[in-house]
């Protein structure tokens, strides 16, 4: 410890020292007086010696605490790892340590807040002032500015310097530089915020699970989807089970510290079924042990839907190919019969062959038309004064001749007061034709035992609220229960020769173009009724 200048501190306490010296002087004078009054030299000398002894003793007796304080201060001032300053009641700096001088320069005589806090007035909650007030130590956090303008974050602790009466005459302000720690804390806070934001904004359902499979954290999306399940057991809260799932990914990750993936179906709290890809990822502690597991769920319901659509599309293409092959073979057959008839000069055969060609060309035309209905190419052509009854009758007449002799009875029932209206006549014709074609195919394919005959009824009725209702009812095999949900989805049927294969899509599209709806009732083995309801234009 190098020698230090104690003077400034002594000055700080000088007020008290004066009174001590006055006291000592008084003792000396009294002792001298006593000696002179007694009148003999040895007594005078004895009195003086006694007085000097007493004064020295009282000097040390009275000054020891103060000196000790100054000594302690002086001893530690320059070894303390903090900026140290002593301030008076005006917050004027009386003394500083080396570290303080190095960082802030020689500021003795300046007011603390001007000297290194870059302020015009006292800081709120100034610990130094509080210590002057109550004589106790105080602390707080402050920002101070170094010589080069460097900002330092400091934790300030104040301690009183008291005189012999216990009054606070100066305060030591010790400022511990915590800039590094503060910066680290800020970085930590920032990365926490970033992490939170990321956690919240990722379009995935994320939760953090502990070893007991208890959810400790969940992001906003997860909470929105599955409720606030934090604190609950994963398998209870999200999977409605009372024991962990077999093949639990999280358990696997806890065991081997690796990422695992699977596909799951979960139900959200609003009852929506979701297809999810699940990844379980380890969160490691300092020692590399798996502390918790992050479970990330990505919603692939849309992808699954697309996959299903693609599968259906594939089936549609296959079905279409099958149908086109039959049409081509029918056409080739027609050409063969025409050629043979011509070779043999058999007019009947030529006529028969032409009929075959015409029939198959018509089927190709209908198929192309229906496909166009399904695509966006065809725009509906609405007309005023179209009679839905007439269209129903036309379709009935068209198919009656076509299926004559097949043991299928086609009937038409209309309510005469169904008024003409604003329809796309060709569209409605196609709609009914498709429903009737499907019904014919259904009856042809019906292998229900004991069914003697088949009936198909086309109806055109007046519905509620001025709606027009078309119905096509058959007593065919009905739609098997397992297919009921897919009736409008499975958009190409390979069965039957009457329908074009895309019939129900066409029906749905035309009904929608008229603002209407399509529904159906079906009993397996007994038949099916399709109902199209079209609101008034």
């Amino acid at each position, binding site marked *: 410890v190098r020698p230090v200048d104690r003077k400034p501190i002594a000055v700080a306490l000088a007020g008290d020292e004066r009174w001590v010296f006055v006291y000592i002087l008084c003792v000396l004078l009294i002792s001298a007086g006593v000696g002179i009054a007694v009148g003999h030299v040895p007594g005078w000398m004895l009195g003086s010696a006694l007085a000097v002894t007493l004064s020295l003793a009282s000097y040390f007796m009275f000054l020891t605490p103060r000196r000790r304080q100054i000594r302690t201060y002086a001893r530690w001032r320059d070894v303390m790892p903090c900026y140290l300053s002593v301030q008076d009641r005006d917050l004027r700096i009386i003394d500083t340590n080396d570290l303080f001088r190095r960082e802030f320069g020689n500021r003795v005589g300046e007011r603390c807040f001007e000297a290194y806090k870059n302020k015009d007035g006292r800081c709120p909650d100034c610990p130094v002032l509080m210590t002057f007030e109550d004589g106790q130590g105080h602390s707080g956090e402050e920002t101070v500015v170094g010589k080069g303008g460097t900002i330092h974050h400091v934790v300030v602790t104040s301690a009183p310097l008291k005189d012999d009466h216990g009054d606070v005459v100066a305060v030591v302000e010790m400022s511990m530089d915590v800039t590094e720690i503060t910066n680290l804390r800020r970085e930590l806070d920032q990365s926490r915020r970033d992490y939170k934001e990321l956690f919240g904004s990722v379009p995935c359902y994320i939760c953090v699970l502990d070893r007991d499979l208890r959810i400790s954290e969940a992001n906003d999306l997860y909470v929105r989807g599955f409720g606030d399940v934090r604190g609950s057991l994963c398998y209870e809260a999200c999977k409605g089970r009372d024991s962990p799932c077999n093949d639990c990914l999280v358990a696997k990750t806890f065991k081997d510290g690796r990422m695992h993936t699977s596909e799951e179906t979960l139900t959200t709290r609003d009852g929506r079924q979701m297809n999810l890809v699940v990844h379980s990822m380890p969160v490691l502690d300092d020692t590399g042990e798996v502390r918790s597991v992050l479970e990330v769920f990505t919603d692939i319901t849309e992808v699954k839907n697309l996959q299903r659509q693609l599968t259906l599309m594939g089936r549609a293409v*296959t079905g279409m*190919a*099958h149908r086109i*092959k*039959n049409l*081509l*073979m*029918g*056409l*080739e*057959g*027609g050409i*063969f*019969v025409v050629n*043979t008839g011509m070779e043999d000069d058999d007019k009947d*055969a030529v006529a*028969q062959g032409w009929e*075959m060609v015409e*029939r*198959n060309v018509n089927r190709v035309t209908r198929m192309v038309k229906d496909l166009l209905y399904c695509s966006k190419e065809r725009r509906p052509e609405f007309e005023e004064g179209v009679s839905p009854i007439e269209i129903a009758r036309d379709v009935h007449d068209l198919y009656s001749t076509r299926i004559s002799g097949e043991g299928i009875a086609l009937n038409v029932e209309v309510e005469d007061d169904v008024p003409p209206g604003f329809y796309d006549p060709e569209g409605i014709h196609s709609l009914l034709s498709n429903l009737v074609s499907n019904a014919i*195919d259904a009856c*042809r*394919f*019906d*292998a229900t035992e004991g069914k003697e005959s088949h009936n198909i009824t086309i109806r055109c009725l007046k519905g509620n609220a001025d709606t027009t209702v078309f119905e096509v009812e058959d007593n065919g095999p009905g739609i098997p229960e397992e297919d009921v949900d897919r009736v409008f989805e499975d958009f190409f049927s*390979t*069965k*039957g*020769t009457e329908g074009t294969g895309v019939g129900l899509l066409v029906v749905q599209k035309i009904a929608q173009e008229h603002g209407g709806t399509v529904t159906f009732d079906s009993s397996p083995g007994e038949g099916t009724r399709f109902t199209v309801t079209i609101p008034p234009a």
Partner: protein
Amino acid sequence: MSAKILIVDDEADIRLYLSKALEKEGYETVVAANGMEALEIARNGGIDLVSLDLEMPRQTGTDFYRRISKDKDLKDIPIIVVSGLAGRDVALKEPVAVFDKPIDLDRFIEVVEETVGEG
């Protein structure tokens, strides 16, 4: 005596086409619109060859094949598959031949001749 060929297809035009083509070659033909009808005709006897479509109402070609395979009198009747279905090649155990639609008529006649002799 010319061979008797059973043509099974739910498409009337295809039935007509094949029967005309075979009759032109001198074969006798008989037609059925589905498996059930075909089985009835086959049970009546005298069928030397079957031209069989697969996808048909009431009873498919595969159903028909399964049934005649179990019938000791009918199980040896040779079958030619004529179908546009994707799985036509594997639908039957041992068909004489499998034709995609529309058929190569010359090749079809050739196979018929190889199987039952000229008409």
